[in-house]
């Protein structure tokens, strides 16, 4: 399937290259390619390679020792736990928000869409700060939390909240335009045919948005596991207790345990690569179905 699309992509490009009207002189093309690939190498490839090179600088033994260390292990568990709570929460929110915004008309829709994007424009540091202001010792609920012996800040709930905040828009922002583009007709058809609301959602809406959904979840997860600034503010850096993997990297780095820091970092880099692989796969799938629906509209017209 995706080979098809890749072929189409190549064909499109070839069209530009063959056509004298849309072709640049060879030296311009060479210059542009050089600049782009140089930029690519300097800013993307080299940093990525550095992570793995530094991680393995002292050999595989040191590498695995750094990963097997108890603090590293508990950081992994905590990272997984935080993502396992934050991602589903934002997934449900994304579905609800996209359903309301894409399938219905109401006042203030544009404002709501903008507000959902708000966390993207807030510095991660501020994302942490706001929860400190609410739940910290001097915060709104601080005294009450201390009285009842509930720990939010410098504890897991704080990490989860900060993570939910910074990953808040990911799923919604993928789904809203997708569902808007698909319109309401298919759902209306299902309703007229007698399907209940849940059945309509499950059998008609969900299959149509599945790639967008996976895309949003994958990006949301990558950010949830990799978030640094926000969790750094609320974590308190208690080793083995409130350190996620990125925070663990920072501690090791600041203690000059570079090989160990990069070993843990390489784990996160692998996660990033995996994310990119899934992401490009999903994109090709998405393009495929987009082309299919374009074919539909071509036939219709």
């Amino acid at each position, binding site marked *: 399937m995706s080979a098809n699309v890749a072929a189409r992509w190549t064909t499109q490009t070839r069209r530009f290259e063959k056509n004298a009207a849309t072709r640049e002189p060879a030296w311009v093309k060479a210059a542009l390619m050089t600049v782009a690939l140089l930029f690519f190498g300097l800013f993307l490839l080299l940093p990525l390679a550095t992570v793995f090179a530094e991680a393995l600088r002292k050999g595989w033994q040191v590498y695995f020792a750094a990963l097997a260390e108890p603090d590293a292990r508990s950081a992994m568990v905590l990272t997984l736990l935080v993502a396992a709570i934050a991602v589903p929460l934002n997934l449900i929110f994304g579905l609800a928000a996209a359903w309301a915004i894409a399938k219905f008309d109401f006042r203030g829709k544009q404002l709501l869409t903008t507000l959902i994007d708000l966390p993207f424009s807030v510095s991660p540091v501020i994302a942490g700060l706001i929860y400190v202001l609410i739940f910290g010792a001097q915060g709104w609920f601080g005294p009450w939390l201390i009285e009842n012996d509930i720990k939010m800040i410098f504890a897991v709930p704080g990490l989860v909240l900060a993570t939910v905040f910074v990953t808040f828009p990911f799923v919604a922002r993928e789904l809203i335009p997708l569902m808007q583009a698909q319109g309401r*007709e*298919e759902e209306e*058809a299902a309703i*007229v*045919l007698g399907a209940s609301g849940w059945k309509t959602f499950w*059998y008609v809406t969900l*299959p149509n948005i599945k790639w967008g959904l996976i895309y949003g979840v994958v990006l949301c997860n990558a950010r949830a596991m990799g978030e640094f600034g926000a969790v750094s503010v609320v974590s308190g850096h208690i080793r083995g207790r409130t350190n996620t993997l990125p925070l663990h990297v920072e501690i090791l780095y600041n203690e000059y345990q570079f090989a160990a820091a990069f070993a843990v970092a390489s784990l996160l880099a692998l996660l990033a690569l995996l994310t990119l692989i899934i992401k490009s796969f999903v994109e090709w799938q998405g393009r495929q179905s987009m082309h*299919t629906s374009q074919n539909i509209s071509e*036939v*219709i017209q």
Partner: protein
Amino acid sequence: MSIRVQNIVKRFGAFVALDNVTLDFPSGELVGLLGPSGCGKTTLLRIIAGLEAPDSGQVFLDNHDASTADARERQVGFVFQHYALFRHMTVFDNVAFGLRVKPRRQRPGADEIRRRVQELLSLVQLDCLADRYPAQLSGGQRQRIALARALAVEPRVLLLDEPFGALDAKVRKELRRWLRQLHNALHITSIFVTHDQEEALEVSDRVVLMNRGRVEQMGAPDQVYEHPATPFVYGFLGAVNLFHGRINGYQLQVGEENLPLAENGFQSGTEALGFVRPHELDIDTDLASRAGIEARVERVLALGAMARIELTGAMGETTCHYEVELPRERAAVLKLSAGQIVRLKPARIRLFASDSQSAEQVPYLPVEHMVGGYGENI
């Protein structure tokens, strides 16, 4: 099952889509809702289906007030303009959908569903395409699948929104005939929306003409074509020539000239619009005659059995365009050529007071319909 809509009003913001519409759709008939885009016909269809709620008014299905009923409860088959086929399901699954989502108690067994779907697919003559996806079908095939899907739940009423609007001319014609046959076989009360007059007149038992959220006329196709109730209907159905003038006894005074009238319900001095179909106009080359109106031949088109003559006339400052349809032999006798001055003589004039509200919009319609409309197909 009969359908009745009563005093339906629907506004979208300041725009009045339906302005107090009351209509009866008799049981078992195929009715065409015809009108220009934006006249409210699709909105009316969606209100009957329960896909849109009216601001006021009621919908009766089989004499029961269904106004508050959910779209699911109305047992209405709806065919969407762009079909709304579920693109991730095969043709078979699309048609089976309505059966599969029934509550467990009413749901037929898997075998029964298979049998019913096969039956429907052969009814729409597409049994061989059951495993295809909508994207792999042609427009006409999609249309028929959408119809099969709507019929699967055994609806009491079938509603079709611009069923042929998205198809090319040839397929459209075939499907039109096919729909008529299907309706003859099933006799299910059906309403379809169209902006194509030819389609409406050819397929329906009855035509409803709508304009600006109001019903202009309802009747059998030949009746509305032969006896248009309003200037709008006159202009919308087929080509028409307009004569703007003043009533003077049994004459319509147009500029300096007079056209004789056979009947006249208007007082002398009334401003009036005279409507004449192209085939109701004759051409006289004898300029000595004082009958009729002077015009200049612009173009003569002899296609098939009929010849179409396009003319212009001066009406004070403005130039008027006329169209005349003559049997080919008659045109040959006249030996018309471009630039020639002739006189136009109407055989029949239909009069409307020119201050009537809908008359104002008519002058914009005729020329458009002369070109691509009913005329060339008759």
